């Protein structure tokens, strides 16, 4: 009898405990960016009392304590959510070093905010997990070939900043098929990555035009590519930048000749995203990235920016040599640090995207003065 009573009490206690944790769970989504692993690495073991304070005080939103910018400065590193298996945009080389177009923009942010392009912690993320990581405070900025869409801006709690690469969805087929338009692909199987805007677009475009098709979704390009090469699907749809990269490597490896259809059937502006609600951090990231475009427009490169001796007041403002500080929370000479250590937009593009077969000139990614879309607001 007594035993029964004890059991009942224990169950009640558990239910009560579950309820209280349930209450707090609603308010959890924000973890504090400050309490992180790097600081834990270097601090001596916590004593009991510090532990208690973290338990009793409510977690602070990053914004309340100087925000992400302050947290990043404290930590001495930017946490950048990246893709590590995307040719041209983010890969890991033989020495375990990250490199690529998106990776360089992580370095741009680190150089702008911390003055050190290597002060980046790269967090590889799947397409599916990227916004959870951003909302959860696991990363400070997401630069992972992410298309800026209204839903993501609205529902995913992400704030998108200046687009770094204007892409569009295309379709690749083996040249031997002779297909040149989407209509040719009627009843064909088409390979696509799951959880991407590409997948949604494919369905939307083909349904709108009344073209019957069978999608074959893959979790990553690693499984998609062999499936495509072995003829399990007749078409491969992805962003044109990716198709270009894979076309080059398939043909180089002695595979079948590939054809990328001229038609681009979606807008894919790829750019960095930061968590909603921290405009100071958003500005710092945005202007770091804009600085690479502005430097390009001014004709400043990693080689000549340090030795500029002209007297264009706009450029002097930009370089910060005249002490101009627009109050972005960045050092006056942040642009010099960025361009010297990473390069201007054109240099970054030529370094990573030219080798995979993409052209800058005449593309939407050209400078606005050349008819492209790259346009930085005036720095004054």
């Amino acid at each position, binding site marked *: 009898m007594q035993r029964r009573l004890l059991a009942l009490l224990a169950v009640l206690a558990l239910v009560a405990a579950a309820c209280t944790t349930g209450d707090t*769970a609603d308010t959890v989504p924000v*973890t504090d960016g400050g309490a992180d692993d790097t600081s834990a690495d270097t601090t001596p073991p916590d004593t009991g009392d510090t532990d208690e304070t973290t338990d009793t005080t409510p977690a602070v939103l990053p914004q309340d304590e100087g925000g992400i910018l302050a947290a990043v400065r404290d930590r001495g590193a930017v946490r950048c959510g990246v893709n590590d*298996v995307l040719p041209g945009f983010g890969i890991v080389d033989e*020495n375990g070093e990250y490199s690529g177009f998106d990776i360089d923009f992580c370095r741009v942010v680190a150089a702008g905010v911390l003055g050190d392009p290597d002060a980046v912690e790269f967090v590889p993320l799947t397409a599916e*997990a990227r916004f959870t990581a951003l909302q959860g405070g696991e990363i400070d900025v997401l630069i992972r070939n992410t298309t800026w869409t209204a839903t993501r801006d609205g529902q995913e709690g992400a704030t998108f900043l200046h687009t770094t690469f204007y892409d569009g969805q295309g379709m690749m087929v083996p040249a031997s098929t002779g297909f040149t338009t989407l209509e040719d692909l009627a009843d064909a199987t088409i390979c696509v990555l799951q959880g991407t805007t590409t997948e949604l677009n494919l369905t939307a475009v083909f349904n709108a035009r009344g073209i019957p098709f069978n999608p074959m979704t893959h979790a990553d390009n690693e499984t998609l590519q062999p499936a495509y090469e072995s003829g399990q699907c007749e078409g491969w749809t992805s962003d044109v930048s990716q198709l270009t990269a894979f076309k080059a490597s398939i043909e180089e490896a002695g595979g079948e000749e590939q054809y990328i259809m001229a038609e681009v059937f979606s807008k894919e502006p790829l750019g960095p995203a930061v968590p909603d609600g921290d405009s100071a951090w958003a500005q710092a990231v945005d202007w770091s990235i804009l600085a690479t475009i502005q430097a390009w427009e001014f004709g400043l490169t990693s080689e000549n920016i340090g030795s500029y001796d002209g007297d264009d007041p706009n450029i002097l403002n930009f370089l910060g040599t005249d002490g101009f500080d627009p109050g972005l929370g960045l050092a006056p000479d942040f642009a010099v640090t960025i361009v010297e250590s990473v390069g201007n937009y054109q240099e970054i593009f030529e370094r990573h995207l030219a080798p995979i077969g993409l052209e800058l000139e005449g593309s939407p990614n050209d400078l606005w003065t050349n008819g492209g879309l790259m346009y930085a607001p005036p720095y004054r």
Partner: protein
Amino acid sequence: MTASTLKPSTLPSATTSPLAWVRSRLFPNVRSGILTIVLAPLLVYAAYRAALFLFVNGRWEAVTRNLTLFMQGTYPRDQQWRIVAQIVVLALAFGIGAGTASAVRADVAKEAGLALPRQSPLSVIRRFWSLIAFVLLLLYFASTATPWLVVAGAVAAFLVGTLARFIPTSLRNLGWTLAALALVAGFQVVSGTVGYSWIVTAIVLAAGAWSTFKFENVEGRRALLYRALVAVAAWVVTYLAYTQLVYPGVGWDYWSGLHLTLWVSSLAIVLSFPLGLLLALARRSTLPVLRWLSTGFIELIRGVPLITLLFMGQYILGFMLPQGTNLSSISRAITAMTLFTAAYVAEIVRGGLQSIPYGQTEAALALGLPTGKMMRLIIVPQALRAVIPALVGQFISIFKDSSLLYILAINEFLGVRSLVHAQADFRAVAHAETLVFVAIGYWAFAYAMSKESQRLEVRLRAGRR
């Protein structure tokens, strides 16, 4: 028994001529003859193709050039000495463990008045040949001298460790303590003294002090008091030492490659075993709440695929923990893998517990043993012995399942493969080669585990009589 009744002439003799062997083995009758004629060319052809792939056509640059990437992934290269140190320290730990184990066997043999079966180096090679072969393959692929030095250092450290067999019998537990300490040290060489990691060292040292210094010349209760004091002192000294010693390292969030695979699966195995044991005992407990909780946990976890648990760990665990705790994705993955394995271990162990006849329990109770002692001394050892194959099977399975972390963008051993194939040089080539290499790696460890479990089974069965 059957062997002795057979006539010697029917046994295949080692001295028969090759022709006779072919005749008796390959063409004993028409049906077998036809089978041989059909299968032999097929097998030869398959072997030829395999050899052609392995030795002639295989483009192994994808592996050789990325060998370090496969081993340690994106781990910072300027901190590589930590991993080298870890390998050496762990080899020392295993050496101390092996030395102490052999000393214990010698003690037991001496006590029983039996001759100690000698262990030749050959038997060690036979036991771990898959791992040795894998290491040799790595050395063959290596382009620098460093891996050779590391292996040499590890072998030397192991041999030094085996000197632990000369520790006097009265201090036998010191050997085990040193081995455990070296294991922890091996971990912390890389990870640094992070957060609460001092607790593990403190537990090891306190338990070691408790079991090593027994104060046998002090009578009764006082000896217990002394032992407790020594253990507490070890605990306090560890804590103080760690607060003074600030040793930054590279936490496991920055580990990847085979290094990560091995640690993640070892941790999941080591942590899930005691948890599973407790769950199994709880499920058979007479206390209803304990039984319900344990049953509920086991059935809940077993009813869910591991990949679902891993995803839940990534997306949901964060919302269930108190605010401010920022678990990294690797910690979450280890948690999910541990819980999953624990549920299976619990069921396996429960099966073992049920196989023990109730008479054993009754006999123990009749001797006046309290429940705890009965379980510890009589029931659990027999139950575990009965389920070794199933347990090791589960552990092998979680070791291989650690490759699921790849789907969470954690670059463990298999995940490194996709990094390699994103590189410009290997984007469309050598997919098969890297896959074969990774498969060999997993097989080497899984096979060694399975082999060890067979050995353990044989050894423990000998004890059953």
